[in-house]
């Protein structure tokens, strides 16, 4: 299937700041795509370039094979759900939603039917006569969604759609957005700084760093196979060890040879970072061959899981482990306790800078 949205070599600078620095990506029809990154990574600028509110310095934006780089935002079959929702404060919910259809020249019964359908889709049919200031945050967000969806765009852009909602509502809306995307068949492109949100909702994620794509892939790829240190660090928690390959292991000063995945890809003597997820660290009370001795220096109970902060004996390097609260050791974790840590080679990833 050919891509719905193609971004080819797009760059945009503001003064001396390169907000978007040469980005290529493609969004498939019917996709739920997330642009993820810390603030200032260029994700919002990229979103505004796609919506047409900014014009790229170079590169092209194509939608359904047509070059839309020079097309004005009001002529693009793309709609944007604003972070602030940007509801028209002087109009009712109904008028907010009907506005975009009126601009298409729609009138009368058809207009009314389309608006009511859109309000039904976001379960706001009974709020049609209200003004935005009479609505809760969650309701405003759904009006903004209905207002964008009612136009049946080819692509819906969502700028931090859940940013202003509290945690419970956010989790509910993540599922809701996913449902709406599947029901309408419209491609969604979400901008977010919340990795959990991106991992939960999107089927593809582009992680941005300083105006460039750090990694593009499925959520599982980003979490389990990060391609560089930035990705490994940004998505989830990670332990890093700096060292170099020596023979059949990865040599970290003070720790000796550690097991690692795809060691053969690294030339003898070459430096890299070894990355291990906290939940992949195995803790035991008794010494195992190859396990590292460590002392517990802190712990945090998280309900389901427990985070244990350790200091590795000899080297003094920190290590974070995450174990299920039901784990045999979890109940006995206390500061000063001596434990032994290890991990399987396939869970230790080598990242070359």
């Amino acid at each position, binding site marked *: 299937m050919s891509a719905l949205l193609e971004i080819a070599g797009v760059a945009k600078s503001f003064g001396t700041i390169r907000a978007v620095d040469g980005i290529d990506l493609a969004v498939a029809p019917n996709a739920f795509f997330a642009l993820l990154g810390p603030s200032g990574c260029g994700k919002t600028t990229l979103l505004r370039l796609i919506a047409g509110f900014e014009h790229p310095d170079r590169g092209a934006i194509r939608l359904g094979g047509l070059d839309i780089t020079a097309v004005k935002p*009001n002529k693009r079959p793309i709609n944007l759900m*604003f972070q602030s929702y940007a509801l028209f404060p002087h109009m009712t919910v109904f008028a907010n939603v009907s506005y*975009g259809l009126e601009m298409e020249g729609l009138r009368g019964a058809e207009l009314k039917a389309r608006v009511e359908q859109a309000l039904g889709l976001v379960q706001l049919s009974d709020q049609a006569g209200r003004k935005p200031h009479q609505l809760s945050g969650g309701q405003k967000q759904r009006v903004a969604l209905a207002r964008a969806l009612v136009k049946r765009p080819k692509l819906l852009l969502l700028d931090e759609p859940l940013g202003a909602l509290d945690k419970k509502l956010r989790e509910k809306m993540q599922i809701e957005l996913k449902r709406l995307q599947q029901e309408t068949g419209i491609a969604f492109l979400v901008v977010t700084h919340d990795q959990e949100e991106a991992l939960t909702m999107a089927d593809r994620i582009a992680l941005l760093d300083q105006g460039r794509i750090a990694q593009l892939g499925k959520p599982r790829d980003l979490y389990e196979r990060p391609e560089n240190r930035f990705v490994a660090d940004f998505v989830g928690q990670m332990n890093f060890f700096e060292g170099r390959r020596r023979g059949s292991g990865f040599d970290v000063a003070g720790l000796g040879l550690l097991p690692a995945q795809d060691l053969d890809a690294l030339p003898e003597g070459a430096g890299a970072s070894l990355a291990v997820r906290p939940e992949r660290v195995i803790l035991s009370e008794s010494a195992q061959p190859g396990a590292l001795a460590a002392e517990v220096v802190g712990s945090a109970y998280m309900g389901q899981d427990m985070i244990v902060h350790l200091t590795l004996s000899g080297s003094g390097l920190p290590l974070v482990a995450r174990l299920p609260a039901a784990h045999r050791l979890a109940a006995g974790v206390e500061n000063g306790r001596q434990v032994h840590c290890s991990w399987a080679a396939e869970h230790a990833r080598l990242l070359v800078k």
Partner: protein
Amino acid sequence: MSGPLKSPGQRWLQAHLGLVYLFLYGPILVLIVLSFNRAGLPTAWTGFSTEWYGKLAANEKILNAVQNSLIVAFVSTAISTVVGTLLAMGMEERRPHPALEALVAAPMIIPDIVLAIALLSFFSLLKMTLGLHSIILAHAVFNIAFVCTVVRTRFKHFDRSIVEASIDLGANPFTTFRRVTLPVIAPGVIAAALLAFTLSIDEFIIAYFTAGAGSSSTTFPMQIYAMIRFGVTPEINAVATIVMGVSFVLVFLSQRLNREAEV
């Protein structure tokens, strides 16, 4: 704790407040009362009468002056509301240098007499004829500054993203202005227009300098000034009472609109 009983300090404060209000509104109260005085003397009360209001309604000169003032106020308000609002929008969009922003507000602060002389010199330099049209232009000068300032306070609470949302939904810039921007800033614009109208209708110095000769460009305050040279009559008190009533209502409406807009 203190209950309905007031401490001496509180009583003293209330008395003080009463004195301040008396100082501010005492003379005006006297004027209003005297406008209903039967006798023509401004010094003694001789009984209630509305005859001065009747005489006023029959005074050709005053009616002519009122008409002139209304023309000046309506036209200069119309000009300054349009220009001042557009100026405010432009300044919101472009964010000019602070010095330029200060220059826009300057006509509000420059003493009227200075502005009056400056305008008169400018009009003579251009060899412009003087009359109602020159007063209208002169009033527009300071009113644009007031309108721009009032409308800009409204923009402080304006979420720019609703303009982008309108364009995103397919509206062109003009439709966006008509259906989104203008309705949202409307309370500020109306308040600004009411203020401009109030300022224009009782403005004397600038009108006096920029008016032409003869009664064709005599405004209402100029007419009162002419009459007062022959002494204060209850007729003038009646005129002043009406003017004050109208100004009071306009200022009240303007402030109320601005306050509602804050919500």
